[in-house]
């Protein structure tokens, strides 16, 4: 449906086209509206396109393009055959061109005259202006009058676009006189009143915001012109503190502007220096148009900042000064406390009484008067303690040491103190220290933590009666400070100036009517940080082969800057790095499973919750052998060796015969044979040996002794053996091995009977030769054969020949011959041997005795000697 309005618009377009025929003679399309359009974002825009002066195209051939996009045909409305309209939503902020165009392919004319079949309108988008708010106008004081410059500020509301900017017009009307108006694009403007500020006139003020999409006014302000005046603040402010009114100083000032401009209201405030909290004097207490005011309820001897401002229209800025009130008598007790230190070896305590100035000292404390009462009825004089007079720079009250005394553990004491300034004396404070061990119970469940830059404490009250207050004490090194809390306090923060990274011992004492109870204590940091240094690392002992014990010295307290939560031990060696974490209360640790003979570098990180610090590196080298290992090896080897030697000795001892038999087999010396010699050339006749044959026989026995003499250990046994031998001297049987046995005796022994045979069981009876009729039928001796017993004294094993009876007989005959026909050279040799043997016997210490005995008893051996043939002749050839 085409509305009547659209038809009217169409008619208007036609008329307009006719009126501006020049342009349309060259252009066949025209839109309505034709010029740039300012549109509100979010609205719809409707445009109409009309065909003029041509029949080449119809409305059906027209289309709309918004920027580079063809508008959907659904948004078109065909008005008639030569006109079409479109409604497009206004969305984006950017300005756009809306073109009405004709299809090119309709006819060659259209194709060749594209420019004539195109018409566009520029769409600029924006928002309608917002209502200005918070209009604030002011005229400030210049010298003694008010400036004629009137400035207003306001706040904008709503959005703007660069295509549709908003402008503001400030309107100021001096009622009945003149209107002022000024425009700006900003949010403030000022007007200049003609010649003077319109005092006592009524002003009407408003701000108008306007742009291409509309205009809107702010709320209108209609007020007296003086209500916009902002004067200078009062000047020449003086505060006079009078001696007799220390709490009520008088404040004076000069008005900034003449009273004829209007009555000025005032506002007064004050605070102590450094305090952020102002105390305002009630407005009702301050009259208008005044130039002095007496402040009330200030603290004596306190520095105050006082300020005042005035108001004609707007409040002026503040102006003020700093002053100090006069001194007054102290109105509160001194803050009395004590420190107690144990005295070693004595049942005494070192008590130091300390005090802070009263909270309301109201002046500089000059002296303290103290009285110590050790007995209930003591009525001592007051002592006066002079105060140095130094005041703390950080606002904290100065601590004065009042008294240092030694107090017996079981003795209580009471101290009374008053503080004096130049005006008067404070109320008395007292402190009672109970006997040691008789203090009242402490608070329970004390917790200390850091938060919001303060140390907070929380506790549960004790069960004791008469609880009057608490004292919170914090100690760091030699520094002690305290504060008092009332008996209902359960949670508080330390108000003193605590430092970060410093360990404090925080204690809560319950005070029972002046008596100090037992404290509950905790250690705490206001702020923790990483330690400033690591611990000093060392080895507690020499490193072992596979382990080393590390020790370290705890970091000095002031360098810890926090609680050490753990130590991390790092050690590297042999290309590997290891890490071990131990609790913070550990001061030594044994590194295990180390490689031997390896250099290790070790260091320790001490950690707090905020970080850690590393110690210097300590190096050590593990041992190649564990301590005692070498000694163990040496002892083991030695013991083994000794065992082997011992076993060998024992073996030798017990198997000496076997060894001797195997190692030194006895080769029988025929020349030493004791078998009776016989020779066909010599009659078998017993000859008295010209020389003792003992030497020739004893050689054999000495050999045995020599063999024994190799081992020193056996020397000990020799006396025993000697005894044995000696005891056997007369009892040795045939073949006895005793070196003491003589052939003669042996023979005689054998003769004496066979009961002695057992004693010679250990010896080898080489032979028992019976002189027979000769070898195999030989008859060497024509004389009737005389049975001769001859026996070899040799302990050597029998030779084969001896074992062979045939041979034995021969050998025996030879020996017999040998004895008779002994070669002088051989005899000499034998003598030498004998001598040597004698020496050897002498060395054993017993052989010479026998020899001597034998030598000294030649007659005794007569019979035996007859049985032995002289062997000096040696062997005779057979």
């Amino acid at each position: 449906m085409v509305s009547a309005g659209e038809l009217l618009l169409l008619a208007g377009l036609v008329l307009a086209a006719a009126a501006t025929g020049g342009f349309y003679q060259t252009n066949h399309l025209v839109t309505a509206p034709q010029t740039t359009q300012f549109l509100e974002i979010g609205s719809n825009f409707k445009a109409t396109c009309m065909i003029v002066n041509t029949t080449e195209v119809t409305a059906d051939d027209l289309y709309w393009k918004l920027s580079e996009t063809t508008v959907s045909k659904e948004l078109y409305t065909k008005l008639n055959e030569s006109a079409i309209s479109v409604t497009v939503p206004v969305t984006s902020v950017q300005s756009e061109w809306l073109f009405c165009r004709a299809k090119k392919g309709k006819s060659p004319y259209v194709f060749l005259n594209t420019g004539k079949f195109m018409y566009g309108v520029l769409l600029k988008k924006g928002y309608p202006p917002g209502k200005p708010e918070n209009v604030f106008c002011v005229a400030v004081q210049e010298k003694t009058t008010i400036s004629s410059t009137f400035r207003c500020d306001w706040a904008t509301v709503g959005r703007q676009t660069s295509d549709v900017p908003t402008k503001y017009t400030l309107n100021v009307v001096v009622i009945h006189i003149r209107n002022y108006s000024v425009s700006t694009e900003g949010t403030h403007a000022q007007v200049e009143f003609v010649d003077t500020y319109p005092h006592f006139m009524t002003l009407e003020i408003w701000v108008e915001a306007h742009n291409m999409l509309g205009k809107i006014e702010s709320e209108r302000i209609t007020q007296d012109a003086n209500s916009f005046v902002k004067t200078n603040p009062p000047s020449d402010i003086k505060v006079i503190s009078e001696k007799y009114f220390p709490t009520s100083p008088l404040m004076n000032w000069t008005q900034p502007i003449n009273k004829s401009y209007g009555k000025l209201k005032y506002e007064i405030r004050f605070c102590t220096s450094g305090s952020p909290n102002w105390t305002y004097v009630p407005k009702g207490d301050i009259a208008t148009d005044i130039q002095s005011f007496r402040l009330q309820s200030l603290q004596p001897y306190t520095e105050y900042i006082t300020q005042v401002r005035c108001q004609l229209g707007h409040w002026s800025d503040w102006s003020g000064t700093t002053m100090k009130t006069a001194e007054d008598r102290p109105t509160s007790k001194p803050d009395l406390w004590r420190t107690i230190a144990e005295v070693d070896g004595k049942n005494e305590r070192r008590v130091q009484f300390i005090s802070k100035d009263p909270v309301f000292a109201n002046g500089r404390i000059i002296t303290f008067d103290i009285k110590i009462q050790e007995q209930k009825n003591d009525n001592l004089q007051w002592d006066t303690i002079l105060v140095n007079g130094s005041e703390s720079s950080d606002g904290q009250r100065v601590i004065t040491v009042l008294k240092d005394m030694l107090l017996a553990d079981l003795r209580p004491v009471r101290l009374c103190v008053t503080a004096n300034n130049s005006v008067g004396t404070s109320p008395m404070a007292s402190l009672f220290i109970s006997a040691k061990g008789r203090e009242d119970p402490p608070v329970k469940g004390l917790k200390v933590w850091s938060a919001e830059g303060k140390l907070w404490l929380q506790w549960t009250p004790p069960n004791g009666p008469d609880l009057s207050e608490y004292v919170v004490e914090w100690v760091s090194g030699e520094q002690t400070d305290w504060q008092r809390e009332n008996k209902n306090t359960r949670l508080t923060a330390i108000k003193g100036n605590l430092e970060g990274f410093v360990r404090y011992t925080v204690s809560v004492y319950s005070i029972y009517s002046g008596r100090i109870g037992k404290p509950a204590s905790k250690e705490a940091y206001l702020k923790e940080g990483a330690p400033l240094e690591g611990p000093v690392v060392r080895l507690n002992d020499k490193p072992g082969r596979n382990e080393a014990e590390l020790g370290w010295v705890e970091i000095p307290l002031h360098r810890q800057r926090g609680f050490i939560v753990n130590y991390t031990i790092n050690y590297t060696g042999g290309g590997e790095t290891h890490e071990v974490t131990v609790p913070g209360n550990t001061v030594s640790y044994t590194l295990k499973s180390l490689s031997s003979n390896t250099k290790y570098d070790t260091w320790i990180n001490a950690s707090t919750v905020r970080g850690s610090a590393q110690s210097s590196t300590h190096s050590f080298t593990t041992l190649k052998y564990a301590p005692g290992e070498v000694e163990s090896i040496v002892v083991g080897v030695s013991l083994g060796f000794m065992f082997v030697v011992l076993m060998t000795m024992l073996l030798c001892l017990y198997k000496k015969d076997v060894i001797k038999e195997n190692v030194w087999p006895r080769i029988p010396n025929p020349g030493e044979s004791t078998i009776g010699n016989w020779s066909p050339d010599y009659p078998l006749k017993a000859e008295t040996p010209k020389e003792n044959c003992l030497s020739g026989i004893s050689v054999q026995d000495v050999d045995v002794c020599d063999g024994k003499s190799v081992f020193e250990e056996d020397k000990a046994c020799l006396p025993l053996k000697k005894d044995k031998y000696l005891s056997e001297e007369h009892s040795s049987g045939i073949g006895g091995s005793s070196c003491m046995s003589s052939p003669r005796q042996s023979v005689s022994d054998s003769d004496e009977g066979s009961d002695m045979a057992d004693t010679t069981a250990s010896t080898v009876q080489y032979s028992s030769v019976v002189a027979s009729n000769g070898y195999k039928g030989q008859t060497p001796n024509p004389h009737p054969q005389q049975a001769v017993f001859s026996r070899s004294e040799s302990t050597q094993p029998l030779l084969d020949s001896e074992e062979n009876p045939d041979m034995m007989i021969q050998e025996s005959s030879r020996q017999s011959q040998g004895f008779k026909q002994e070669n002088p050279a051989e005899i000499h040799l034998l003598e030498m041997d004998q001598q040597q043997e004698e020496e050897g016997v002498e060395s054993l210490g017993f052989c010479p005795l026998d020899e001597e005995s034998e030598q000294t008893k030649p007659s005794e051996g007569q019979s035996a000697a007859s049985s032995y043939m002289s062997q000096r002749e040696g062997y005779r050839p057979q």
Partner: protein
Amino acid sequence: MNGHVKSMHFQRFMETATTLLSLLLVMAFDSSRTVAASRNQQCGDYVQKSLKLSRLLQKESVDLIKTYKASQGEMSELFCKVSVNNVPDPNISGLEPSEKIASIYTHLQEFFPHFEWVYEQQTDLQLPTSPLLSDLRRFTAGSRNLAYLIKPFYQSLFPNVPLPEGGPTTLPPPQNIFQQKVYGCVVLKTFKELLSNVSRELRSLKSQVCRRRTHTNTLF
């Protein structure tokens, strides 16, 4: 019976009419009281503001005369003691409030040409940066503002009586410098007297006019 019924109807009608009339009277009284209160308030405001401004101008006139004397060189004290013709009369005339207010207004108006003339003369005599010139401009503007306040005050009190604008002011003939200096000082001093008189009259008017009208309204 009928007569009794008619009588009762009439009685009821009379009661209703009386009630309505009373209501109308109360409404009219309240309305007039509100209007009167509003007018009284307006009256008081104008008087109050005019009075304050006249006091301020009085104070400024004192300062201005000091500045004027200081800027005129030697013998400045003597200038202000000489009498000069053609300076408007500072006295307020009239017996009725309307006449007094009209007199205040016309007297103020009469002085403005003289201020302009003094300003022109002093512009020739002083340096452009002289504080006297700016003070003169400010004082003149303030005086005009006072006149602007008196006019609505008068109109608020006497809306149907036109405010006379005053006759033409006669400015002095050409003067030499001495005469100019004397003339300027006399104008300022005379105007100061006028302001003093205005303040006094306004104080009396404040108590007379505004209260009287309130009283009148109350009586009404």
